[in-house]
């Protein structure tokens, strides 16, 4: 087994983790390591495109990290904790043990997915999911794409796909125009965001933004199974039925990119025993968790966008480097990003109608193929899990857990190691 010992260990190389690392060095910390499961730094918003991070600010931050004395371990996924201050990560070369004095958890968020008839068809992706695939080299030029679900991520994804030559047919947003407008008005308090929003609106003005609208179901004309390699990637079209204020509208497209805002990745924090409240990791002003030497920054503490992740990362980084004065200077800024995050989450709250999208035969747990009707009979996650295997597959309930929490109100069960499936020889 490989070993690594750091004074400050950071799990997650996204906006929060990188800004924590940079603050920790500039605050006087030494012997700092970032461990991340992607091949490149950047996290979600700054995910590398064919190996390169395009955003100028992010590229600068990465350069500073690589030039500074910060260790970066990519393609390493933390899956377990051994003893009080050691974590295990699976890497392409086996398991590495990471020992730390202080730990900063910056594991980000994932998309929330909700089951509806047809959501398991190929051609249906997450919204951020399709964006990530395109950043990984998938060509979407001239593809007809519908971006659907909820949240500001839909706009970012539509903008991105548009810039890659896709034909974004519509953006389908379940939230009401009233809620979104109220949220947009709140942006007057943050001019930078307002300018961003205005620029985005200008770029997307040709694309219909259908509010109060959601996907009822998706079908595919001919069964979409292709295993043979073809020179001309022939895609069979998807037919989407939308529910628009009670009326049905049908749209044809090649891909559906659909996600319902974000859920925090709290598994590592929960595994270590950090206090979790209402689904998020509890932290104090210095981003310290209920464990004295463990900090948490970015989306596991609240869904608040990249600005929130950056400032929380800084606060945690300074604090972990014993430079609490510099952390304190950022409290006001952090609190402002929190208010923005709260307004965002209120504006894009899920409507109750989405709980009834799945029909009896719709698969809810994609790992174990558990259908809605099998689950509807149970009162809680634990019993459903034991009786149906829902949530027992390799994703460990990361996809069906947030869905069943929304649909049935089931609270997630305790987190057990390994938090990601690991090859036997690496356990």
């Amino acid at each position, binding site marked *: 087994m490989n070993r690594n010992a750091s004074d400050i260990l950071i799990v997650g190389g996204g906006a929060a983790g990188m800004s924590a690392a940079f603050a920790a060095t500039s605050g006087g910390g030494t012997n700092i390591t970032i461990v991340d499961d992607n091949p490149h730094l950047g996290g979600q918003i700054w995910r590398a495109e064919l190996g390169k991070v395009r955003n100028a600010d992010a590229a600068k931050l990465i350069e500073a990290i690589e030039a500074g004395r910060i260790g970066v371990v990519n393609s390493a996924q933390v899956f377990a904790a051994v003893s009080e201050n050691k974590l295990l990560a699976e890497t392409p070369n086996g398991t590495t043990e990471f020992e730390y004095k202080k730990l900063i958890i910056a594991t980000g968020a994932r998309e929330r997915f909700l089951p509806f008839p047809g959501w398991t068809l190929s051609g249906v992706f997450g919204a951020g999911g399709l964006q*990530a695939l395109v950043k990984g*080299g998938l060509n979407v030029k001239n593809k007809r794409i519908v971006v659907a679900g909820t949240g500001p991520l839909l706009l970012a994804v539509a903008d991105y796909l548009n810039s890659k030559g896709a034909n974004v047919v519509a953006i389908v947003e379940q939230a009401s125009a009233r809620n979104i407008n109220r949220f947009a008005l709140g942006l007057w308090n943050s001019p930078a965001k307002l300018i961003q929003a205005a620029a985005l609106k200008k770029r997307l003005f040709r694309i219909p933004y259908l509010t109060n609208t959601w996907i009822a179901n998706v079908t595919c004309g001919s069964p979409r199974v292709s295993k043979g390699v073809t020179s001309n990637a022939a895609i069979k079209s998807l037919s989407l039925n939308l529910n628009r204020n009670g009326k049905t509208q049908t749209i044809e497209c090649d891909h559906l990119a659909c996600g319902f805002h974000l859920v925090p990745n709290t598994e590592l924090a929960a595994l270590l025993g950090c206090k979790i409240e209402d689904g998020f990791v509890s932290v104090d002003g210095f981003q310290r968790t209920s464990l004295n030497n463990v900090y948490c920054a970015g989306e596991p503490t609240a869904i608040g966008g990249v600005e929130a992740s950056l400032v929380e990362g800084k606060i945690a980084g300074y604090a972990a480097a014993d430079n609490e004065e510099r952390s304190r200077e950022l409290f006001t800024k952090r609190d402002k990003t929190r208010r923005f995050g709260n307004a965002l989450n209120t504006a894009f709250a899920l409507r109750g109608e989405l709980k009834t999208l799945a029909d009896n035969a719709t698969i809810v747990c994609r790992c174990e193929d558990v259908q809605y009707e099998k689950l509807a009979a149970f009162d809680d996650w634990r019993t459903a899990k034991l009786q149906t295997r829902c949530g027992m597959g390799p994703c460990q309930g990361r996809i069906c857990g947030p869905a069943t929490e929304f649909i049935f109100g089931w609270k997630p069960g305790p987190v057990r190691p390994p938090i990601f499936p690991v090859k036997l020889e690496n356990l």
Partner: protein
Amino acid sequence: MITIKLNNSDISVEENTTVAASILSSGVDAFRRSVSGEVRGPLCGMGVCFECRVTIDGVRHQRSCTTLVADGMEIITDE
């Protein structure tokens, strides 16, 4: 450009492409079969849903969305 073998056909892809992107770009949409036999492909694109699993260089159940292509890599889907 580098050359990989996808379901026994040679294809050439740009460096730093993910295995998932190169599979989709080749017109293949059957990544794996679900436990009840449905065809599945990538959902999350970020390594959490495990829907994009394929066989890479003989090792089964590898997440194709978080793996980058390498010269001579052999990928089998829908096993």
